[in-house]
């Protein structure tokens, strides 16, 4: 955007957010140049830090009036560049809106602002025996608003569902700058489920300013089983058998030798040395049932050829075992100067085949791949390792990473299970969806943001022109009988 436009907009926005709430200093702007996907960087023209929903609305109205694109940012932990700024646009940072406005333990509901961190919701309601179920690995820092934008999952979404299953109402600022609610907080408002459609739209349909979340009673008993195997296939067999037994664990996670090695070096998690695969199965629920399921899970893990099984039921022990898994992404940094965190999904029953394909890709290319995955729902997080100091290696790693996604699509899966499309994967969307599919999705975009100013350039490889809607229409829209709304 031209300097004069920036200057004029900055002065308008200072009136809204206060001088301290508008950043124009180039050095400070640089701290916002990327989110968790650091391979994409763009310095925004302006950063604003509004403190109220009304201020967000005023900022968006000012942007809309000036025709300037805007991007919302929560804690900036996203892994697909969803909060990557627009070079000539305004970055709206919601981290100052971090109040928990209400907790109603009897209704199992809380109302929070978008900048509230995921874990702090659970901390605020723990004394009532409740928790907020979605638990992305970044839950200590990631914001609930960002979770809504990405429809975040986490290790426990296998049983407890995703953000969209735990959000009952959203106050949003539309791309035109109007405050409105989607859903009324009761879980069944009338009309279209725009609340559901908005959740996971990656910041392209508007900006969340309040969230009504559903809270869940804390499980009476939690048991964590660790089983070590000599091959990924054997671990995979245990997963299949557990699901076939009609058990839905809270989480089923698997790590391969390379990621175990990395985690061991980083946090000394004490996983069985030399294991080719470690399987973590967490069971939660009423005590009697968890005990019974634990016996079955142990037996199935053993039958699949486990060389060692451990079980933990006290929180400290469980945390110790989980530490290895949760540290895996960062720990891999010790094995390799650079790596790509991939996020693909395949039907659970195809896991074995797909892992074999990934191993073959790795062998052919000489690029190492560490595998960490949510085995229960087929969500793979291959970590593609490379040395950026070696010419051409980054490109080869990128090719392997892309080939893994192709494999996921080939097996009927998805290019992203939880990290989102963002800027990172929009080019893969046409491999998963037809032109008509993408065009149809963008009808929603056109309904919310016809001017395409709200987080433009994300999710879709090619924007749809929203000006003229196709199809014919004759005469005025008739009035409804009985005062009902016409749709």
């Amino acid at each position, binding site marked *: 955007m031209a300097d004069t436009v920036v200057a004029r907009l900055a002065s308008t926005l200072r009136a809204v957010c206060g001088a301290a709430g508008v950043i124009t200093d180039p050095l400070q702007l640089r701290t916002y140049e990327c989110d968790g996907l650091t391979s994409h960087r763009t310095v925004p023209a302006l950063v604003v830090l509004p403190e109220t929903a009304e201020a967000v609305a005023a900022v968006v109205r000012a942007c809309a009036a000036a025709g300037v694109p805007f991007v919302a940012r929560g804690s900036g932990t996203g892994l697909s560049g969803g909060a990557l700024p627009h070079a000539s646009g305004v970055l709206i940072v919601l981290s100052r809106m971090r109040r928990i406005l209400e907790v109603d333990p009897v209704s199992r509901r809380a109302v929070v602002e978008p900048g509230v961190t995921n874990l702090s919701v659970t901390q605020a309601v723990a004394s009532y025996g409740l928790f907020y179920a979605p638990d992305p690995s970044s839950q200590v820092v990631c914001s609930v608003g960002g979770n809504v934008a990405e429809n975040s999952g986490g290790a426990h979404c296998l049983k407890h569902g995703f953000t*969209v299953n735990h959000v009952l109402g959203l106050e949003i600022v539309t791309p035109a700058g109007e405050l409105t609610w989607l859903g009324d907080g009761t879980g069944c408002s009338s009309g279209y489920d725009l609340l559901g459609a908005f959740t996971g739209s990656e910041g392209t349909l508007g900006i969340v300013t309040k969230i009504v979340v559903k809270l869940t009673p804390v499980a009476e008993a939690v048991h964590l089983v660790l089983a070590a195997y000599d091959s990924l296939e054997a671990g995979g067999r245990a997963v299949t058998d557990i699901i076939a037994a009609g058990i839905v664990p809270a989480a089923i996670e698997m790590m391969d030798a390379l990621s175990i090695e990395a985690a061991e070096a980083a946090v000394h998690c004490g996983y069985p040395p030399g294991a080719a695969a470690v399987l973590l199965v967490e069971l939660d629920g009423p005590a009697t049932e968890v005990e019974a399921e634990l016996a079955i899970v142990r037996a199935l893990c053993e039958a699949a050829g486990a060389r060692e099984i451990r079980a933990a039921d006290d929180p400290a022990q469980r945390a110790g075992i989980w530490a290895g898994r949760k540290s895996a992404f960062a720990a891999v940094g010790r094995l390799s100067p650079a790596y790509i965190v991939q996020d693909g999904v395949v039907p659970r029953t195809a896991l074995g085949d797909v892992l074999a394909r990934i191993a073959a890709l790795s062998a052919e290319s000489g690029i190492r791949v560490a595998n960490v995955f949510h085995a229960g729902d087929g969500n793979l997080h291959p970590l593609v390792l490379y040395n950026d100091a070696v010419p051409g290696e980054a490109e080869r790693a990128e090719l392997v990473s892309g080939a893994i996604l192709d494999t996921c699509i080939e097996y*009927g899966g998805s290019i992203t299970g939880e990290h989102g499309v963002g800027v990172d994967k929009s080019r893969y969307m046409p491999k998963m969806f037809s032109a008509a599919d993408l065009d149809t999705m963008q009808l929603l975009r056109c309904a919310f943001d016809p001017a395409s100013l709200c987080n433009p350039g994300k999710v879709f490889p090619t924007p749809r022109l929203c000006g003229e809607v196709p199809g014919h229409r004759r005469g005025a829209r008739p009035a409804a009988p009985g005062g009902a709304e016409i749709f």
Partner: protein
Amino acid sequence: MGTERDGAREDLVAACGEVREGGAVGGVGMVALPGSTEEVAAVMRVAAGHELGVVVRGGGSRLGWGTPPERCDLLVDMSRMSGVVEHAAGDLVARVRAGARMGDVAAVLAEAGQEIALDVPGDSTVGGVVASGLAGPRRLRYGTPRDLLIGLTIVRADGTVAKSGGKVVKNVAGYDLGKLFAGSAGTLGVITETTFRLHPLPAARAYVTAEYVAVPVACAAVAAAANSALVSSAVELSRAEPGGPTRVGVLLEGSADGVTARSVRMAGLLGPGEVAADAPDWWPGPPSAAAGETLVRVSFWVSALGRVLDAVDAAAERTGVSPVIAGSAGAGVLYVRVGGNGALGSIAQTAASIEAESANDPEGVAVAEFVGLLRGAVADERGGVVVLVAPVGVRAGLAGRGGMSGGTPGLALMRAVKDQFDPGHRMAPGCFPGTP
């Protein structure tokens, strides 16, 4: 007009092979029976070309819900599109065509010990359940169709075929059109195929029930059951008459030993409750209304349950109606049935004739007033009151009292969505998508 209609008919026959006259159904023109997504697309292209108003029919059981369409030149009957396309038992996923009956689907899935965890009538079609957003008591644990739907194929008003989601449960690629179409009541396009996440069929079930005279005690029992770590699948409440006893029932599902142990503890929580293997005769199923009844959905925060019940009583006393209450109180949803003499009316009934009819319908006016009073009181509790089914006279009376749906958050955006998907406003013209 005759030639235009003949032309449309010929084109429809070419599109799907089977077209019937709709004479038997009031106000319906032609009935097309497509057998595949491609045939639905061809039918919709013909409908677009001839500017036909289109209504989609699944099982037909909830066609009378909401506001009847203003016109129906073409009824798209989905009954030929039945069958489970794919049941990936190891992945706990099933792909089902929209015209399949829920009961038939359940039988197929049960062979592998799995289910779509919605308690809905077996003769309802999958597409109808999704389009109406229908859910029964177990919504507390499993949610509604939108929570279980992981992928779908639709045909747009112009005949474009589009998919969203897929056949993996965890998937955030692209916008989730499943959420948009669930509960859209056929107003955005035709759902032709759906993919659901499945759950293992529970090995055992138990119902723990109790009856209360004091409303606050019943409300405390509901909250205790819903908030307990005993994992209730459903917490239902039923009251047959104002001032009458309130029944609370809890469904527990799981392993045989687990359910036995939990039901003893749940009985203690209900202070005391009775335990049975089968549902009590009063157990509410999915919401439904008898002929002539008005069916109202009241949703609220559970902490307001007592005040909501008081509001129903107060509105009933003021208007002289006798509401019957039943529903998923633990999930914050109750269904209130009132009246029983009005006719639903038919497609293409004009506003004028509705008004004339309502003038002779004092009961309709009373019911509408009841809804209006209830709306005012429940709004204070941050709840919503939506009329799902109402006879003509009641609908007329609701004008000026918030209509069928009351205040709908995000209405302007909903209109914009409708304009994008169906710019000619030909899909279920005039219908409001009411979601049970």
